Structures are given as structure tokens and as C-alpha cells.
């Protein structure tokens, strides 16, 4: 079941949080307390977080790349962004 209110949220990076792509294309989230290495799925999502795109738009963009349904990918995007928000890395 789709959570409509979640899907329309627009996230941005909190102060003191940024992405950095390193050797071997590893994507790191640089955060106040250290460094978080993102897996491929997470980095594909977080690379599209810009304070303008909604989670639905991010999901739509990723649907073109990955072979999964929009519903499935939207769930994934929302839960990842919420988790990062809970850890203080993203804000609404």
C-alpha cells in the first residue's frame, strides 16, 4: 500500500552533510560524526536528493533505470529517506 503523504515529500541535506564519490565509485555520505558508506541503491537515491525533487519524482527517475515497479521503488525511496531523516542527515 502506498503512503501518499510520504511520497510527496521533498528532502534536502541537513547542514554538515554532503555526498562524495571516491575511488572505485564508492559513494560516501560525509556527516558530522564520521563517514557513512552507501550501497548502490542508497547512493542512487541520495544522489537525486536536491531540495527540489520530491520522493515521487526521484522514484520516477529511478524507475527508468531499474526494472521494478514505480510502487516498489517509491516505497524504497521513502523508507530510505525517512531513515536518513531520523539519523539527522536529511531534512524536509
Amino acid at each position: 500500500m502506498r503512503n501518499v503523504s510520504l511520497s510527496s515529500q521533498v528532502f534536502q541535506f541537513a547542514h554538515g552533510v554532503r555526498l562524495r564519490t571516491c575511488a572505485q565509485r564508492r559513494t560516501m555520505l560525509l556527516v558530522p560524526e564520521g563517514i557513512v558508506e552507501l550501497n548502490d541503491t542508497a547512493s542512487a537515491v541520495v544522489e537525486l536528493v536536491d531540495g527540489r525533487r520530491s520522493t515521487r519524482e526521484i522514484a520516477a527517475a529511478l524507475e527508468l533505470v531499474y526494472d521494478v515497479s514505480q510502487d516498489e521503488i517509491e516505497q524504497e525511496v521513502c523508507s530510505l529517506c525517512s531513515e536518513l531523516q531520523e539519523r539527522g542527515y536529511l531534512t524536509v
Partner: protein
Amino acid sequence: MSEPQPLSVLCELTYRCNLRCPYCYNPRNLSAYRDELDIETWTRVVDEAADLGVLQLHVSGGEPTLRPEIALGIVRGARRHSLYTNLITQGTFLEDDLLDAFIDAGLEHIQISLQAAEPALANEIAGARVYDKKMDAIQRVLSRKIACTLNVVLHRTNHDTLADTIDLAERLGVKRLELANTQFYGWAYTNRAWLMPTREQVRSGAQIVARAQERLKGRMQISYVLPDYYEDFPKPCMHGWASTFITVAPNGDVLPCPAAAEIKTLQFENVRSRPLREIWESSGAFMAYRGTTWMREPCRSCERREIDFGGCRCQAFNLLGDAGETDPVCVKSPLHSKVQDALIDITSQDFTPRRNVTPTEA
């Protein structure tokens, strides 16, 4: 275990400080560090760190803002390499001009300390009447667009005021609060009997923090670091010796962790005489406890050997006189009683203030 790859460098600009906190982890022989690195050498260290693949620099001390030009120079140098920078300060010199200069230079995060929520207690712990100045600095940082963490080191004397600390942080609008129990190195090791919290304090503290974390979800991140003497397994110190982390001491000595100078059986190399990469890759101090091959029993065959890496080498040295032993915090250590003994003797009413060194700009 993955290849060691340094990700963070702790740049300790000076061990000088105008405060006298009894829990300071700086070395006790401060006079050995008077010959501080100059800006040219620090700039080279930043370049060499970036070349090694480091991503994050922590600018610390002592009080790093006692050397403002060097602190700013490191932040500017880091930005050229897109390195993340974090300033760790007690804030007593963080006036508007200096703060704005740091932000213009590209600083991304400030960790600022507070000794306690209550002014008289805070001043007593700091050994100076600096509470008001520090509160000004905290508010100044919070008013800027920069990430800020308020750090409060916990010990027996301020542990019962934990709830007040959380309330104060909430009133100030702090978004990140670190409540870390003292780690017993340097001056803190000397003052262990005065600093050690009681088991009851730790238990109720964890409950207070858990409730606050729930209540403040999404508004304030609160981390609570237990005193490891009360744990069953040791902390995964530095995520393994010489695996991701480098400390450069004020005199240029390169250490695998900020407390490593306590291990008198190790020799440390210096950035004045050898490139950072060579020191990282082959110096004796870095090789000594890297990976798992140095381990003895009970670590060697333990299923947790790549979870906690045998714990802390400095703690093994401090408590047992041998940095190659299992951290005695571990219940599997045959010498675990050394940690339990330290928990019996926690009645001391006195502490030795960190020796004060007159601040003079280098």
C-alpha cells in the same frame, strides 16, 4: 578484513588550553609537545592526507583556536581537496569574526563542549570562569548555517544532571547532542577514581537518554556513550588499530589513535621527517597491531575478533602494562578483574586539574 584505508585525520594543533578539565585525554607530559608544527608543514600534511584518500579532517587540540591562523589554513587547504572539516573546540575564543572566518574558509561542522548545564558546576570542572563565554559561543554557532554538536563529557560529578543538560540543549535549539562518558586516558586516567560514574548513574542515565531520544525524535540527535569499564565487551577502538584513522600530534608525531603516545613500548614517526603515506603503510607503530595477526588468546580464536578488534591497545597498556593483551574490559580476558577493581575504588573526593599552560599564540 578489508584493506586498511585512512579516512579521517585528527589534526591536533596544540596541547595548550586555557581550561583545566580533569577528564582531558591529552598526554600528561605536555612539555614534550612545545615544538609545534608550522603552517607550511600542516599544509603539506593536508595535501598528503588528501593524496592518501582521506575524506575528513578533525581540527582539535588542546584548544585549536589558540592557533587560529593554522586552524583556518588547514580548513582552507582541506577545501581545495574537497575534504570535510570539523572543528573541535571549547569555544572560549570563538568570537564572531573568528567563527565567520571559519565558515568562509569552508568549515562544515563544529563540536563545542560544555562541562555541565549549571554554571557553578561547569566552571568548577573547567577550572575557570568561562561558562558565560561558552554559552555565548554556543549560541553564536547555533545562529549560523553550520552543523553543530554540543559535547558534554560525563562523569560522576555531572552525571546526575543529565536531564538538565538535555533540557538546556533543547531550549538552545541544539540539533545534535553527544553525551559521552569519560574515556580513561591521559589526565582522565590520573583522575579515574574521581571521574568514574556509579553503576546506578549509568543505568538511570541510559534510561533518561532513551526517553529523551524518543521524545525528541526528528528534532535532536542524542548519542550516549557508556563508560566501557561497565561493559562486557570492549569498544571496537578506532575500528581496529591503523585501519581508518590517523592522529597527527602537535609536534608532528603520527599516531594510530589520539591516546597512543601512552604506549611507551612504541616508537612514533614524525611528519617532519617522513611522508604520511610511508608512515601509514609501514611505520612500526602502525604495523604493530594492525589486522588480527598480532592477537593472542583469547582474542586470536574469538568469534568477535573482527567486531571489537581486541578492544583498546592503550587501555591494555595502561591497565596491564602490555599493549598486546586483550583489553581487560572484555569478560573473556583472564585479567578482567583489573577493570572490576577500578570500579570498587570510586570514592575519591579530589582530582588533579590538567596542568595549565599559558596560552600564547604561536
